[in-house]
């Protein structure tokens, strides 16, 4: 404890700041991300929310969608794997592959929401590009059924496919996409290309029509490898599966243009002006490490990153009281001997008289308490002391959390000063309804303005 703890902070304090709400104040970003201009800009047609799992990505996407809608735009939110709660918060019991109008939004705009059904989406691609007979063959193919039911990459690919479809319809002013909960940030960008290049690639061509290559010089070696490989794969997978793959690819190949081309088109759509990537994170080590990785990756792919949404940032209205002082004060209350500095007084401390005298001269000028409370019994006072000690410990925890969050965030901004940040204060509970989403939207928009006032 400092020798004169009572006076020290009183002097240098700017009253207006101490009285202010100060929520989420402690972290001051290098650049603030202003959400509203982004959502209002008619040029913004796609917002992609990406980030690691468990950081509130889907909630952020929904809140942004609602805010844009209530600011007058016609919006569709494409979620990949929403918690049931989130669907319910938008007043929809279950989301499916078709955009559903969300009721209860305010203003002229519209909010629609849908959840990606990857099998359904894949089926639609097939149905759209093949004549009915051929489509039926593909849809019945066992290899196709497994592929479309969701193995590695399919979900990411279909999310991109759906995005492309929604954008092509030109029915919405703004599409907000929530990315799949991938193993790592990379999958989301890689998988479409991977699946595309596989289905459209050399391997498949070799598998399906090795004879075509026979004549070409230089391919002879490959062909040797090829027959060996077909044999190996056949042995490994069983001949039936390989045959299923071959039939599937042959049917796909003749019916519609390369998957690669489609994947490339979606990829270009993501790079185009009008698309805005938001990386979502929480001020925790792992989430921000993942976010940094994503930022670097987006830059490498020339994807338009507009900023970082930092969810669950803690603040405190009593930011001037440090964790150390709060803990020391809590100890004083729990063990009065320390504050009294004399064993003799400790026993008497809980009587009203000694309570008054145990206060230092610094706080002696505090007789503004109502008389009714002044006369409260000793044990009640003891329980208030105990409670107050608890409040102080709670505050100490909060301040320690704040400084950890700040350190973690600072590490990120030091590495990526160019990335604009918006912070969303931590809320004690989950979002249950449109009002909750609206609140988050308000916080998202307020995050930026609040910070511009900081020194």
């Amino acid at each position: 404890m400092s020798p004169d703890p009572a006076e020290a902070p009183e002097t240098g304090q700017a009253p207006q700041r101490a009285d202010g709400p100060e929520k989420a104040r402690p972290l001051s970003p290098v650049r603030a991300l202003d959400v509203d201009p982004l959502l209002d800009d008619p040029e913004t047609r796609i917002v992609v929310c990406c980030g690691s799992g468990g950081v509130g990505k889907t909630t952020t996407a929904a809140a942004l969608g609602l805010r844009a809608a209530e600011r007058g735009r016609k919006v569709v939110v494409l979620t990949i794997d929403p918690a049931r709660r989130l669907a319910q918060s938008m007043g929809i019991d279950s989301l499916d592959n078709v955009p559903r109008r969300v009721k209860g939004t305010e203003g002229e705009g519209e909010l629609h929401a849908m959840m990606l059904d990857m099998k359904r989406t894949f089926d639609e691609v097939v149905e759209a590009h093949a004549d009915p007979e051929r489509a039926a063959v593909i849809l019945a193919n066992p290899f196709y059924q497994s592929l479309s039911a969701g193995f590695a990459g399919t979900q990411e690919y279909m999310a991109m496919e759906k995005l492309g479809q929604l954008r092509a319809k030109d029915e919405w002013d703004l599409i907000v996409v929530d990315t799949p909960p991938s193993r790592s940030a990379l999958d989301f960008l890689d998988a479409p290309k991977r699946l595309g290049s596989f289905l459209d690639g050399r391997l498949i061509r070799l598998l399906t029509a090795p004879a075509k290559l026979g004549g070409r010089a230089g391919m002879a070696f490959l062909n040797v490898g090829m027959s060996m490989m077909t044999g190996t794969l056949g042995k490994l997978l069983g001949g039936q599966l390989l045959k299923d793959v071959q039939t599937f690819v042959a049917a796909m190949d003749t019916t519609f243009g390369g998957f690669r081309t489609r994947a490339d088109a979606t990829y270009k759509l993501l790079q185009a002006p009008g698309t805005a990537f938001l990386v979502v994170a929480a001020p925790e080590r792992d989430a921000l490490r993942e976010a940094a990785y994503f930022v670097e990756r987006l830059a490498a792919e020339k994807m338009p990153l507009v900023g970082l949404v930092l969810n669950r940032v803690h603040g405190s209205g009593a930011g001037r009281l440090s964790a150390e002082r709060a803990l020391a004060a809590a100890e004083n209350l729990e063990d009065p001997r320390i504050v009294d500095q004399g064993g003799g007084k400790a026993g008497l401390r809980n009587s009203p008289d000694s309570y008054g005298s145990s206060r230092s001269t610094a706080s002696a000028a505090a007789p503004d308490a109502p008389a009714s409370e002044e006369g409260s019994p000793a044990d009640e006072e003891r329980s208030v002391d105990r409670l107050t000690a608890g409040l102080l410990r709670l505050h100490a925890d909060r301040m320690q959390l704040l400084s950890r969050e700040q350190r973690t965030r600072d590490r990120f901004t030091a590495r990526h000063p160019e990335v604009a940040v918006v912070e969303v204060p931590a809320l004690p509970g989950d979002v249950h309804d449109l009002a909750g989403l609206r609140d988050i939207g308000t916080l998202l928009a307020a995050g930026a303005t609040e910070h511009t006032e900081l020194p």
Partner: protein
Amino acid sequence: MSRLQVVSGKGGTGKTTVAAALALALATEGKRTLLVEVEGRQGIAQLFETEALPYEERKIAVAPGGGEVYALAIDPELALLDYLQMFYKLGGAGRALKKLGAIDFATTVAPGIRDVLLTGKACEAVRRKDKSGRFAYDYVVMDAPPTGRITRFLNVNDEVAGLAKIGPIHNQAQAVMRVLKSPETAVHLVTLLEEMPVQETADGIAELRAARLPVGRVIVNMVRPEVLDAGDLELVRTVGRSSVARALSTAGLGGARRGGNAEKLVDPLLAQAAEYAERYALEQEQRAVLGELGLPLGELPLFAEGMDLAGLYELATELRKQGLS
């Protein structure tokens, strides 16, 4: 105690940490455990503060009482090449396959093959014996994919077994399923005391049970210490502001009069207590939901300073104390 311990959980619940602590706890008293990573994130290496793990079983920690923890990051590509070598002696040809994209195909896009290779490798470690006929590892702990994908991941062998109706992959899938659906395996789910992770845990358990995969325990991770108890929270609602101001003043935090330093702390501190109360109530609710799942529950404390190696050992001790290992 099942010899294959699979640890899953919603993203952000700390399943890698729990898996690592479990591997340490199970290794105590001279046992040997293998901690397996399947998602290529190198989370284990980060936790144990070592360099990235290769595709190789490597000792990464010594447990109290002389036990050993080995770790393995399973790389599906290398596992496939391994497998080809083992069954077909295809060392060099593997590289040619890789060049053609066949390995990429098999491990990335081919239905479920990736998952078969990953679970297959773990099951192989479970069954492996040394020359004297002892099991190579007393326990294998898998840091598995998240709750949303765990059933499909573990059950994929069934799907592949249906798809590849003959051949070594088919046989492999069958053998793996025999281990995964036996009492030799237990699938644990890590959760937080928050609504969404608890909901996902409940859904995950239902899915696992429907697939007849053996569900082990629910481990509630990052449980915050109880700073204020129910009695305190009751008092928070009724306490006079001036009494708190006086108590703060007594504690040496300035004047209790209006505008005094101690007095100015009252509102923000009570606001923080109200937030705490709201969260406390939510946590109690979620505890009740978890209680209805009919599974043994374990609780691990939050390490406010973040997880490090020392914390991992503490968690391992805690797991042993609660009889979770």
